[in-house]
């Protein structure tokens, strides 16, 4: 089922949690709602689920207006951050809950319920644990029960609130791949909330970046990473440095420096600006190539990757530079002056975050 949000607005007292949010999600898509805490991502997810009424705007499930539809009748599969499994019911009954809660006319026969639950148990690889209580499961297992329980009602949408937030790093990565697999097999339109950009980038078809109750950017992980539309998105997604300066006539001059870096044609910018560049998009160039001048502060090697910390001459910003091993050559670990040229960069007007 496709999902359309039209100018959704939600206010808590004087705080605006959602500023007229518009979003279209295609049927079968896996979408990440990504943002720092307080960005409104969980509010947005809860509003879509019907856990939270909105002040204005519309929520459409396909062509059906779901804005005024209650949580119960919206029939979304919601996976809570701390799973919210029914603690006194075993795994089997947790998953069967939605089917058993249907009005009598629509309720499947007990044998059918049992068949469906066993099928789901097998799908989430918990076939042997049907009679366990939630207390007796690991975090990853609870998470899978919560997902199976949500899928049991054949939901219009699957919504997950920080699905991996409460798990340790290794389980998190395994479950991420597994969730992608489940999604590809079942085809439910799925939205999940996360504050972890790596998780969003790896798992999602499209990423929605939120900041202070507004959508900053919507795009594929690659678009978001390579072509951020704001300095906030650049800063939030991945590593990188931003250098303040001035743009004029297709040239960028960092503060306190007389270097002039060319700005590509497609970027139209004039006045105070930020040059934003990722560590792997910087190249060491010769002194006459007109690059940024800086001094090596430190040379770090971590997990096979070598990173230079270079302190810029003018603005005093420290740039991180990722190097291939053959580029290290005879660089002095400390104090040497080098020149750097960006191979790929973004420019944003300064004074706007």
């Amino acid at each position, binding site marked *: 089922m496709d999902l359309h949000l039209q100018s959704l607005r939600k206010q808590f007292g004087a705080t605006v949690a959602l500023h007229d949010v518009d979003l279209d999600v295609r049927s079968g898509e896996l979408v990440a709602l990504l943002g720092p805490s307080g960005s409104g991502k969980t509010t947005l997810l809860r509003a879509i*689920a*019907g*856990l939270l009424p909105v002040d204005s705007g519309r929520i459409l499930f396909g062509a059906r207006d779901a804005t005024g539809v209650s*949580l*119960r009748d*919206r*029939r*979304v*599969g*919601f996976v*809570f951050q*701390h799973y*919210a*499994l*029914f*603690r*006194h*019911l075993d795994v089997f009954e947790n998953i069967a*809950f*939605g089917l058993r*809660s*249907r009005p009598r006319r629509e309720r499947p026969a007990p044998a059918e319920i049992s068949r469906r639950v066993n099928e789901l148990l097998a799908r989430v690889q918990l076939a042997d644990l049907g009679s366990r209580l939630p207390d007796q499961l690991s975090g990853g297992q609870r998470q899978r029960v919560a997902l199976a*329980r*949500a899928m*049991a*009602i054949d939901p219009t949408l699957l919504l997950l609130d920080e699905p991996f937030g409460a798990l340790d790093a290794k389980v998190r990565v395994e479950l991420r791949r597994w969730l992608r697999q489940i999604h590809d097999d079942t085809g439910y339109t799925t939205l999940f909330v996360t504050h972890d950009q790596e998780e969003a980038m790896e798992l999602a078809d499209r990423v929605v970046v939120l900041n202070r109750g507004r959508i900053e950017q919507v795009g594929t992980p690659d678009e978001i990473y390579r072509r951020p539309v704001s300095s906030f998105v650049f800063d939030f997604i991945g590593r990188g440095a931003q250098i303040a300066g001035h743009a004029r006539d297709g040239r960028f001059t960092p503060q306190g420096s007389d270097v002039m870096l060319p700005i590509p044609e497609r970027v139209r910018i004039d006045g105070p600006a930020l040059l934003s560049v990722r560590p792997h998009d910087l190249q060491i160039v010769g002194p006459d190539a007109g690059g940024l001048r800086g001094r090596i502060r430190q040379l770090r090697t971590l997990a096979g990757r070598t990173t230079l910390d270079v302190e810029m001459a003018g603005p005093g910003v420290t740039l991180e530079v990722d190097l291939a091993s053959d580029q290290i050559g005879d660089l002095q670990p400390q104090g040497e002056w080098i020149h750097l040229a960006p191979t790929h960069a973004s420019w944003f007007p300064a004074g706007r975050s």
Partner: protein
Amino acid sequence: MLTESHADSALSEPAWLRWTLIGIVVVAMLGLIALPLALVAVEALAQGWVAYFSAISDRDTVAAIKLTLLVAAITVPLNAVFGIAAAWSITKYEFPGKRLLLALIDLPFAISPVVAGLVFVLLFGAQGWFGDWLAERDLQIIFATPGIVLATVFITFPFVARELIPLMQAQGRDEEEAAVSLGANGWTLFWRVTLPNIKWALLYGVLLCNARAMGEFGAVSVVSGHIRGLTNTLPLHVEILHNEFSFAAAFAVASLLTLLALVTLLIKIWLEARHGDALAVRAGRH
């Protein structure tokens, strides 16, 4: 691991201090609690088993037992329902005056039971606010069973609510929200999610509520009128017998209340040992 203190912990005091403190507590417990308890048993049986049984099978005593059971049978279910409703409203909804309501629930604990009784006399007594209205319709509340029930309901109101509120606060709304998102209606929600989660705490509250309902003296004393065989509950009956110098009979009836206390205590200990983590007192541990 709980933060239990060990004898060899860094906070341990010198041995003499430790043993002095323990000694004081033990002596106080023996003198103030165990000894009187034993005395009740001894005095009750001072004139032998025959006298004991005749005292507790006396017509007025049986009437008092019946009235006490009736009052508890009305009060406890009422307050269980009130308690659940109050705890539900306070923990699941946001509304103005919530803090005030929370404070009001505690009022019966804070106020002297005599005052509580007097309030009801002032409201429903012959000279009270509703006195004329009630007299016209030939309804009697004060010096009758309804008054006793009202006073007892008032006094025992906090027990269930007080036990449930912290537990339901600790459990949060997630499970209920999950249930509704899965299509549960209010009925299913209550019987399959909420009640199973609070049942042991509810039982705990009901137990304490019952003990107090059967044992309440002050408030009931004011509204009852002490009519033998009619408006006398067990605690009031003990007092009457005592005032009449029928000590053995007084202690015989008192032994019934003491027995109730012991049974309550045993169930309480069992609940705490067996289902401690489902009770509010320990819910914060998770």
